[in-house]
């Protein structure tokens, strides 16, 4: 079987080549699917993947799909090993030369900037406060998913990496963002907002930037709200706000919100999904704006993936992720648009978030 890799904890990874795949059927509700799996495989280690549109599909019915995909997939892990990053990389066969991909953005710069202007108008009219605007990129590739994973592993920082052999495509994720982590009764999330090139002075250029501060604060209040929706007895708490996240190719600020809960994964996802940092605020109206402006369905991108066992799980926000479909390789990037957003700067941030792909991208107009 194709190898499956998923972040675990403390820089350790789950590695398995013995698993069973369950997919959510087109006419099946994802919550029902998760509950059925939980009832049958509660104590087993599982790896879960869920698409962005799973609980808002009616908004995106007329959007183009980049590839055929199941709404949700779960791997029941029969056997696995736990590897450190170094052991993991040694396990995958090497390629002689670094891989190169020529990515093409499936969005014109002028069109992207025009969309930023439309969002700013909607913000002025009071319809929304912030929206995350994204677009896909595509390249040809002849490499195996494992080789792509290994090639970009060191180049992308981030704690939530994974390689998932889904039935319809391979996901190669280098996500730096934790969406939901539950350890017994404690549930937490760590939204990221605010970006800066790695060579900038973090304290000066990011921490003192009011626009970046407001963007993250807004998402913190939104996620407090989503967590407060889970429980009435316990209230969410902000455990830290605006700490530095250094990723080697970019730096960000992030925060942490937590709450006590006994609710199931399906119940928690129903009120927190899709994640606030990749949709916008207020969330309901932002999702409508995304449906109006973005050309393609996001599918796996900005969905979630991670491991689940018993009452514990850890799920990333699936950003900074490659999707390999036959010999096509997709990648996506996006930016949080607020009223003070400058369309040109947002386009530059869009490019910056493509990490090490940007060296080839920057040469394009």
């Amino acid at each position: 079987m194709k190898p499956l890799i998923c972040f675990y904890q403390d820089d350790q990874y789950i590695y398995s080549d013995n698993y069973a795949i369950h997919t959510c059927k087109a006419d099946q509700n994802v919550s029902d699917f998760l509950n059925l799996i939980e009832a049958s495989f509660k104590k087993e280690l599982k790896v879960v993947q869920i698409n962005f549109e799973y609980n808002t599909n009616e908004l995106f019915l007329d959007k183009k799909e980049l590839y055929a995909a199941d709404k949700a997939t779960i791997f029941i892990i029969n056997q696995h090993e736990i590897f450190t990053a170094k052991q993991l990389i040694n396990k995958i066969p090497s390629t002689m030369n670094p891989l190169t991909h020529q990515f093409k953005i499936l969005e014109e710069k002028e069109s992207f900037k025009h969309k930023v202007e439309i969002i700013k108008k909607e913000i002025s009219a009071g319809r929304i406060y912030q929206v995350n605007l994204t677009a896909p990129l595509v390249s040809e590739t002849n490499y195996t998913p494992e080789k792509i994973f290994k090639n970009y592993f060191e180049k992308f920082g981030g704690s939530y990496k994974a390689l998932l052999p889904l039935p319809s495509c391979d996901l190669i994720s280098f996500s730096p963002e934790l969406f939901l982590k539950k350890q017994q009764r404690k549930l937490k999330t760590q939204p990221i907002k605010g970006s800066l090139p790695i060579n900038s002075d973090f304290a000066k250029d990011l921490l003192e930037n009011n626009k970046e501060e407001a963007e993250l604060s807004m998402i913190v209040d939104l996620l407090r709200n989503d967590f407060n929706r889970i429980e009435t007895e316990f209230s969410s708490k902000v455990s830290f706000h605006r700490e530095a996240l250094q990723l080697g190719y970019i730096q960000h600020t992030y925060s942490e919100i937590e709450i006590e809960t006994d609710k199931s994964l399906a119940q928690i996802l129903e009120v927190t999904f899709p994640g606030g940092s990749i949709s916008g605020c207020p969330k309901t109206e932002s999702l409508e704006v995304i449906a109006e402006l973005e050309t393609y369905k996001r599918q796996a991108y900005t969905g979630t993936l991670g491991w689940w066992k018993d009452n514990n799980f850890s799920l990333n926000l699936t950003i900074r992720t490659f999707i390999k479909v036959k010999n096509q390789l997709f990648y996506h990037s996006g930016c949080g648009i607020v009223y003070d957003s400058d369309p040109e700067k947002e386009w530059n941030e869009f490019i910056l978030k493509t990490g090490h792909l940007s060296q080839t991208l920057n040469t394009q107009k």
Partner: protein
Amino acid sequence: MTALLIDHDDSFTYNLQHWLAPACTEITIVNHRDLQKNMFANLVVLSPGPKNPSDYPHVLDFINNLSPRAAVYGVCLGLQMLVSLSGGKIAPYTPPLHGKKSKLEIKNNFYSSLQNSKVARYHSLYCAEYNEKQFEIIASAQEDKIPMWLKHREKKWMGVQFHPESFLTQRPELHLKALTDWLST
């Protein structure tokens, strides 16, 4: 005290619920689309939300049909609804403030414990005009002098432009006490 919290599809409604909880025995959240004429509680709370008061005519009708003694507390869009129902003017505010903080300039000594206190602002619109015969101003923002906190002189209506439920707002418990003190007078 029971509260009816009208949700205008906002992403802060449940923060408002948790902020109100210590003062309430029961809080019922109802989406504005599901609002029924016969719904009632000791306190009606109007959540923040997107768009303009005029986009919610059914909520404006609901408030208009309440008894003049019914207590109504509006947050952000909620304040703007109370002001527009009283002939005030709601206009775009440039630049919109979302996730930013201001200091309160308290004008009524009864609320002086919140003087200079920082509050969170999330708004693209503001109360450009309000009828001073009907509303008393409790506080404005120190930075731009925009009305932040208003109270109706006859009806039991109070509203805030800022977000008392935000984690950016200092002393949220004092804001809740100000609300309950006002309700008991």
